[in-house]
């Protein structure tokens, strides 16, 4: 028994051993804001971007891109909801306005939130919205039909290989 085999674990070592798992637990939560920022910067997951004012782009009039508009509702959302026009042919760099129409067929007030998604994902970063009903929650009075507008531009920086973009909205019910 010449050597003491039961060396004490130093305080510093303990601190490291215990803090590593705690830090990783915190990291799981840190991934939530990191993910949001990552999606905004890269357009990952079809996240569209929002702009504050009409900026000028160099417009190539000969270039055309098709934009398709889609609507979905989930989780028993009671409001009928769809695009006013189903597709448009647009020129990247120019601003367009279109709208979605929603009709509340129930006798109750329904509050909803629309979540947009753009496909293909490489187009998402270049699909910029100046005005959108998805920026705020929407309140639908009983039996009311509303037209909700959308003003957008597709940045000419969009990859030239992309000829068609789909924009879809998914409406979710919010609790009063």
């Amino acid at each position, binding site marked *: 028994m010449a050597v003491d085999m039961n*060396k004490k674990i130093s305080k510093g070592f303990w601190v490291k051993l215990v803090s590593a798992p705690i830090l990783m637990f915190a990291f799981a939560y840190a991934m939530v804001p990191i*993910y949001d920022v990552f*999606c905004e910067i890269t357009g990952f*997951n079809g996240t569209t971007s929002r702009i504050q004012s009409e900026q000028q782009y160099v417009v190539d009039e000969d270039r055309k891109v098709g934009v398709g508009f889609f609507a979905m509702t989930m989780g028993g959302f009671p409001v009928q909801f769809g695009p006013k026009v189903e597709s448009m042919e647009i020129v990247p760099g120019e601003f367009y306005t279109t709208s979605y129409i929603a009709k509340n067929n129930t006798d109750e007030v329904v509050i909803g939130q629309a979540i947009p998604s753009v*496909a293909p*994902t490489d187009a998402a970063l270049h699909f910029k919205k100046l005005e959108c009903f998805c920026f705020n929650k929407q309140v639908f009075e009983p039996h009311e039909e509303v037209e909700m507008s959308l003003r957008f531009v597709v940045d000419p920086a969009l990859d030239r290989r992309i000829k068609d973009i789909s924009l879809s909205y998914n409406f*979710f019910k919010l609790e009063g």
Partner: protein
Amino acid sequence: MTTATATIPHGVHHHGPEKGLMRWIKTTNHKDIGSLYMWFAFAMLLIGGALAMGIRAELLQPGMQLMEPQFFNQLTTMHGLIMVFGAIMPAFVGLGNWLIPMMIGAPDMALPRMNNWSFWILPFAGGILLSTFFMEGGAPAFGWTFYAPLSTTFAPDSTDFFIFAVHLLGFSSIMGAINIIATVLNMRAPEMKLMDMPLFVWTWLITSFLLIGAMPVLAGVVTMMLTDRNFGTAFFDATGGGDPVMFQHIFWFFGHPEVYIMILPAFGITSHIIPTFARKPLFGYSSMVYATASIAFLSYIVWAHHMFLTGMPVAGGLYFMYATMLIAVPTGVKVFNWVATMWRGSMTFEAPMLWTLSFVFLFTIGGFSGLMLGIAPADIQYHDTYFVVAHFHYVLVTGALWAIIAATLYWLPKWTGKMYNESLAKIHFWWAVISVNILFFPQHFLGLAGMPRRIPDYSLQFADFNLISSIGGFAFGASFFLLTYIVVDCIRNGKPVSARPWKGAKGLEWTLDAKAPYHSFNTPPSRALIEAESQHSA
């Protein structure tokens, strides 16, 4: 030096184990706890296997035969959870407990009381998980990956028990990992340098770092599920500004390191058994260490290859594809090192060696199908098909489980001081290795033809391969009765062995008594002994 304990006068170092049941409840001995872990894992293996028999019975023929689809989903979910968290992971922790102190010349683990705690959490966690079968609404049925919103908005009430069980399992694993790190870094024989350590110790040390990095992330994601389900948060709920796809990112940030947690110790075991039965030092020891560390690092940066179909920019798909392919390089280093170890060796084919050789071959098949799945454009075809099922069963059954069985047979003489029945073990090996291939190989074809996973029924063109697969499944399941007999027979009636029952075996554990003494090394082994027992110096 014949044995370490023989040099210690009686009375200086005390006592063997306590008698009766309290021995197992109160024990802080690494061998007792190792045995508890191994028996627990074996019990869970049999339970998880029984669930798999239910799955294969339902899939024996097309059409709904035996159960409701909802119950089938419960079976697949619980089978996955029990095998991953109840069988494979505890079995490796058990092997680590048994072997690491003996391999590094230490008397016991560094934190024996925590060791006791981390084991005794497990039966409760496993019990809670299994009890969900008997709850209203049934057990979790959303797949072992528990993707939101299936596991949040649409899940049965028992999901909260599942979450608590995962918390407990995570605690147990993290404590086990902390214990192993502390043991390896603090309790190693003073004369043993890091690069003298046997590979099982190295792979477990690296696995421990994966565990303390990944398991807390799992705890985080199930905590988010818990608050989403019960406390009005909206991490994964688009209504409240959350995102279900983010669940998959966080889950796989844990999930990918997790698959290496389940295979790195197997690599270590293989690196012990092949040199023994090839009677040559391990080829490329230091490259093995660096390859293990590289695999561990890469495992943290490839997670989204599980998510190619969630909608990802081309650049993202390319990055995750290339990073995934990169893992094949260090893994290839290992496989070639094992082959080079056998090259011109005087090989014999005792049962542990048979299991290990088939591990190398079959795990490599699983690795290659993994490469196929890693090709982002091809994955569109393979995703969520039986090809994926075949892939991960080749790496987890004929990979991780094979190594566990090989290790059990290889070190059983050291644990019990007795030898198992070699001819029965050989029969068991051939029975298992043939049936496991009948079970899983046809699933590759089913997947390529488009049969989806997690579905209780299938269209008629899949009927033949499913029938073959199910027959293989029943035969493979039955083989575990023989394994049980072999192990129990060894413990009860095995012939006594010498301290080094395998002639070519090297390692400090073989310098202990035939049946390893209750306390391993009370005096640290000398430099000369460490060098003589090194598996990698000629």
